[in-house]
């Protein structure tokens, strides 16, 4: 059977009434001295003003942007043809090596 709107409203009002009646008498005073004892145990606080706290909040704000950049760069690298680039690099470095050694020791030419 489908729940009717009026039924929902009736139930809601009943629950709201029960819920608002949940607030009872004040607690004793013992809890307050317990809080102060815990506060004194924690000791004096350090103010958040200064370079490092500001820097930390900036780092956290930039964290999502950094993650996005890493993800984008990762995707870009995955789509790039890295094998061909590696071959080119190998050829160039091999040539450079040979020419430098031959010039240095006079082995060729």
């Amino acid at each position: 059977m489908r729940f009717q709107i009026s039924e929902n409203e009736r139930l809601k009002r009943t629950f709201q009434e029960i819920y608002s009646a949940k607030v009872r008498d004040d607690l004793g005073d013992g809890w307050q001295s317990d809080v102060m004892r815990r506060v004194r145990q924690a000791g004096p606080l350090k103010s958040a003003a200064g370079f490092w706290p500001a820097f930390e909040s900036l780092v956290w704000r930039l964290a999502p942007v950094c993650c996005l950049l890493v993800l984008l760069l990762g995707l870009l690298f995955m789509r790039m043809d890295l094998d061909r680039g590696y071959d080119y690099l190998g050829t160039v470095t091999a040539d450079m090596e040979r020419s430098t050694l031959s010039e240095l020791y006079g082995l060729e030419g």
Partner: protein
Amino acid sequence: MQKDPLSPGDTEIVRKVLDGDVNAFEVLINRHKVLVLKIVMKHVPHKDVEEAVQDAFVKAYLSLPTFAGKSDFSRWLSSIAVRTCYDFWRKAYRSREIPMSALTDQHQEWLEEVLSGESWESGPEHSTRSEAAEVLEHALGMLSAEDRMVLDLVYLEGRSVKEAADLLGWSTANVKVRSFRSRRKLRKILKDARQKERRAS
């Protein structure tokens, strides 16, 4: 409580505490204890209220360096109190401390009466109050801590989505979605309980 115009404001006291005067924090407790108590009493079972209130104030003290003074201190403290209650439920659900008792015949009768409108006109009778509270507690106990807090704030307290989002530190979209889902879950829990009663009779 009327505020003495000559007494220092909350922001000034916060500054004093941050400058090392730990005892000045007691002034803030005295000023705002009723507010915190009212919030915690609504969300947490009576036997756990004292501990939750203590936790809320200690958390507030430790978080004082992050209070920028841009918003009202009581608003900032309310948000800490609500989040403390949320933490309480998260911990309770994780350690499975929520009693999952089934609804009795009286509970199901009460549910049937309310939904059929028999005992509605004058609101819940004193004798049925405890049944109603137990049905509500049973249904809330079957929800997650997140759904429970959203349902408490939006459905039962009648706060706006924006207000609930500010108190919980969540986005309004998240609160809106959770509010819709938790109400649907609550309806399903009660519908199932009602169907069980009908099948039994």
